[in-house]
């Protein structure tokens, strides 16, 4: 018994050391954002000797060379509408594929699975050129719409529904409910967990996407936070770690909050997507 306790004590100690290592870059990011420029460049200590809000003030000042506020608004618009769109499109399709006797069912299911195995890079540049030809670069359209073509969500919800008993729906049909009523009042409540998972995964995927937004966005006013930070890394903040960390904190905190809030759904989602 005592041996067991010693063993678990050692394991907890090892885990704690690793946890410190994992958290260090984030903690360093936060503390550096409160350092002065000269201290951030020279200091070997984690904590600021002299705390300052100057970095945050400079990001949000009227004369700032970054559009942090506009980027935040863009990110909110793109991620929220994009996530709702993906859920709407995927739930309807998955429901019809799992429950209704529709034409071309096998073909569509085949498409869903095959598309999962094709690397995203092959559609990226032609999709960009199509948006360019349609004169839609630098608008919200390419930043939102293409995410709804992903088939992972359909796959997840379809699998969930397949393992879910049909009795409730059949009872509802017997009571004279319409297809739409069954969908909104029986199906929706029961698939809430998997939809929440899909929502969180999609939200973070859109929020953190870098390559695609960098192709379809030209002007500074249309950038998302993730894209904006990249501009700062390559540009004005390149010589100023304190300012760069302040921008990074602003860009990262919303994602971290969403993640911590939805941690358990995320965990489940990874399990579901992992079962293949």
């Amino acid at each position, binding site marked *: 018994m005592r041996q067991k306790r010693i063993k678990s004590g050692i*394991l*907890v100690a090892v*885990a704690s050391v*690793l*946890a410190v290592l*994992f958290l260090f*870059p*984030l903690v*360093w*990011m936060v503390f*550096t954002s409160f350092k002065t420029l000269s201290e951030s460049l*020279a*200091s*070997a200590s984690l904590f600021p000797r002299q705390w300052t809000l100057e970095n945050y003030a400079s990001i949000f000042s009227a004369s700032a060379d970054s559009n942090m506020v506009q980027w935040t608004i863009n990110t909110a618009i793109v991620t929220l509408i994009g996530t709702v769109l993906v859920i709407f*499109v995927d739930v309807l*399709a998955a*429901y*019809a594929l799992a429950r209704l*006797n529709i*034409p071309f069912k096998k073909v569509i299911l085949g*498409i869903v699975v095959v*598309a999962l*195995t*094709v*690397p995203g*890079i*092959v*559609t*990226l*540049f*032609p*999709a960009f050129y199509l948006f360019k030809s349609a004169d839609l670069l630098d608008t919200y359209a390419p930043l939102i719409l*293409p995410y*709804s*073509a992903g088939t992972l969500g*359909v796959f997840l919800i379809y*699998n969930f529904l397949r393992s879910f008993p049909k009795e409730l729906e059949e009872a509802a049909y017997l009571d004279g409910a319409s*297809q739409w009523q069954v969908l909104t009042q029986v199906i929706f409540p029961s698939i809430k967990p998997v939809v929440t998972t899909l929502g969180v995964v999609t939200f973070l995927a859109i929020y*953190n*996407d*870098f*390559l695609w937004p960098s192709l379809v966005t030209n002007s500074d006013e249309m950038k998302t936070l*993730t894209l904006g*930070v*990249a501009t700062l*890394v*390559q540009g004005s*903040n390149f010589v100023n770690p304190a300012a*760069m960390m302040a*921008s990074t904190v602003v*860009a990262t905190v919303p*994602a*971290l909050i969403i*993640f*911590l809030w939805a*941690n358990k759904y995320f*965990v489940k989602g*990874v*399990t579901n997507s992992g079962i*293949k």
Partner: protein
Amino acid sequence: MHMTNKSKWLGFIFVVPFLVSFLVFWLIPLLYGIWISLHDFRLSVGNNGFIGLKNYVDILTPDTIYNRTFMTSLKNTLMFIVLSVPPLILISLGLALLIEHLPKKLKTFFRTVFFLSYSISVTAVSAIYLWLFGANGGYINNILMKAGLISSPINWTGDQPYAWLVIVIATIWWTIGFNMLLFVNALDEVDGTLYEAADLDGASAWNKFRFITLPEIRNISIFVMITTVIASFNLYGQSLLITRGGPEQSTSSLIMGINTTVFGNNQLGVGSAMALLMGVIMMLITGIQYWISYKSDKDELAKPSRKERKRLKRAVNAGPTNVNQHPAATIDKKERKIT
């Protein structure tokens, strides 16, 4: 269920939004990309006519400019895969095993901590690592200098092998939580009675890991390996932002090379051909991984360790099994394999 033709097509309406979106943003771009790759297609002025497979020939003929771009960035990307995939799998499995053996109350906490960095963007990761490992004024250099371990700053992001080291460390820190979570969930699924039986048999910790844990998490390990290789193939943000592809293009990845061809050289046709080649290479490697793991599964049964497995199996059958739980667990595992 009896359904009239009319209601059949009524139900079809539900899949229309998905099909339209899939068609416009996936299938048409895919086919259009193939079409573009067969043309002399400039980003600025568009199509200059059909040229057959010339773009592909150019890319694959030694010493043309596109061949150099493609081969160099392919070589760099494969280098990154070799450097990043083993630690991404082994360390994540180690973390998962560690979490599995922690007291119950602490599991969620540590799992969350190790997974936390997965939620931030590649640009944030790059910003952080760029300044942790900055040459002049970077935090790690400051510490090493103060401690007297080095006398002049190390050019972490501008010299090899440091440049790869920084990119690999940043990537491990950023993405390892995802793999760990897959392993944690797989370890949770392992039937506990197997271990109990092995304990009764006096099996060592290593043997339990080798003969119970590893075979039980086999499927998820293959999945982790394949997804990790694919993710490493898509290296872009880290090397663009941390090392800017340097020193001397040595960390310039495939996607960076394609990007340069399309936007730098104005060659959408050549770039599309490169992207398709990259996609084909990725699918081939995925296929080979599937094939090898399927084959090794067969070979496994023929090895001398079979005796040991049999002995364990007997022990398991004789061991104290929970009747209510055991069959259900078996069914569950079968379902996992099918889906």
